[in-house]
């Protein structure tokens, strides 16, 4: 029953996709649009299959940077948030710089980082991390400060240590906030990885999907460009779905965002 309901939920979006693709294909064929301007969906699918080895290798490179950056954003972001939540002074001292790091466009700092850091791979990782970490810090900091005042009193009444309060009250309170931040950061980590690759613009063995897009553009291999682009958005959608599922799973018993359907 649940699987059926899930299919029914996905149906409208699938119908829209089908209509769009059919329209696109028809228009390209009827108007005889040249492939180097706009390739038909069938041509893109064909290219995706033909170049699968190349594209898969590139996809792996981009995925590795994205996931590493996301992991680092989650770990360091949580650590920073816990630090900020421990003292107002610390928060007042450092928060503005975190904001500064966030609002500075990554394309402007990426060249510097690539010059400063010897390993290109590490430079890309740092760039993706800078783009991805802030939502986790901002959300988790807010979550850690949102503990119920009555529960705080209760913890004080039983002489809870700072550590106990953090682990048993602040951390669970912050979990939904953290997960919402993580979901935003997932998309940003992918964008960060792609943007950094664009700036680096390097070839060689460590070239990800973004480089394949650049390369295909220079060589006017437009179907390949579209294939790489398609792969990128499918990856983004899949990651987002994964995070949503994780969030639902972790919050299913207690958070309004996850139990709405159960009651």
């Amino acid at each position, binding site marked *: 029953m649940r699987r059926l309901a899930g299919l029914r939920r996905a149906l409208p979006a699938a119908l829209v996709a089908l209509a769009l693709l059919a329209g696109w294909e028809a228009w390209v064929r009827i108007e005889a649009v040249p492939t180097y301007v706009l390739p038909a969906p069938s041509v893109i699918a064909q290219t995706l299959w033909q170049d699968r080895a190349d594209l898969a290798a590139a996809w792996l490179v981009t995925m590795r940077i994205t996931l590493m950056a996301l992991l680092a954003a989650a770990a360091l972001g949580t650590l920073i948030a816990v630090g900020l939540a421990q003292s107002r002074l610390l928060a007042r001292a450092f928060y503005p710089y975190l904001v500064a790091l966030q609002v500075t466009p990554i394309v402007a700092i990426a060249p510097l980082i690539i010059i400063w850091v010897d390993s290109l791979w590490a430079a890309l990782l740092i760039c993706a991390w800078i783009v991805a970490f802030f939502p986790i810090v901002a959300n988790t900091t807010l979550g850690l400060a949102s503990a119920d005042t009555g529960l705080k009193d*209760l913890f004080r*009444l*039983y*002489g809870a240590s700072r550590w106990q309060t953090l682990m048993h009250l602040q951390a669970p309170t912050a979990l939904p906030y953290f997960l919402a931040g993580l979901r935003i950061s997932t998309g940003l980590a992918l964008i960060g990885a792609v943007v950094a690759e664009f700036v680096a613009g390097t070839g060689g063995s460590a070239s990800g999907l973004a480089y394949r897009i650049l390369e295909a553009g220079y060589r006017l291999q437009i179907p390949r460009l579209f294939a790489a682009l398609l792969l990128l958005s499918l990856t983004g959608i899949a990651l987002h779905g994964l995070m949503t599922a994780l969030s639902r799973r972790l919050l299913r018993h207690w958070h309004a965002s996850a139990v709405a359907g159960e*009651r």
Partner: protein
Amino acid sequence: MPAALTFEGVGKVFADGTDALAGLDFHLDHGTFTAVVGPSGGGKSTLLRLAAGLLAPTAGQVIRTLATPGPGAIGYVFQDPTLMPWADVRANVRLPLKLTRMPRREADARVKDALALVGLDAFAGRYPLQLSGGMRMRVAIARALVTEPSLLLLDEPFAALDEITRFRLNDELLRLWQLRRCTVLFVTHSVGEAVYLAERILVLSPRPGRIVTDIAVALPQPRSAALRTSRPFEDLSAAVSRALVEAIQA
């Protein structure tokens, strides 16, 4: 034996200048059930927070002489159930024992007893979101009792419940008190509830709160629903209401 809880000239002025309580003088004997009745916003919650040591008085002193001092000696039931939504009933009731680092074995047994005491054995694995308001309040009471406190403080715990649930929980609270014999301080704005539950009623004036009347409730224990419609109950309720009205007008 000194009193379980003594207020000596206790006053509380908050940092923002709110004068919540002034010159409170009273003491609670061990094992007694006392109710505090007062108007809304009259510093009743402040009184309880002072009694629990969650707030420090700005004048006078609060002295607790409890059989088992240290964390866990005081049970506190808030106006809202104040449960952890992410934890099931069992984990919520276990919280005080976890915070006071009781060994797991002993804690398990205590949690089981406390849940049985409030009739929630069958709901140990449920989450607060899956419970009714009355059941949530029962969990809060079980949590307050799980450390076997010698002083139990209740801050209008049943104010948000419907009357039938409220009556039932009143009877349960009395039964638990008969069983455990801890010192109870029960804050409420309901005169009827105070008369039904307590052996003694303190009437609090509007801010800055002070005790204007100290009434002994000479009704037999254990109490039952029939009492609510009896003549002595009505007379006492009338006396407390009069004291409350006079306090507000003064």
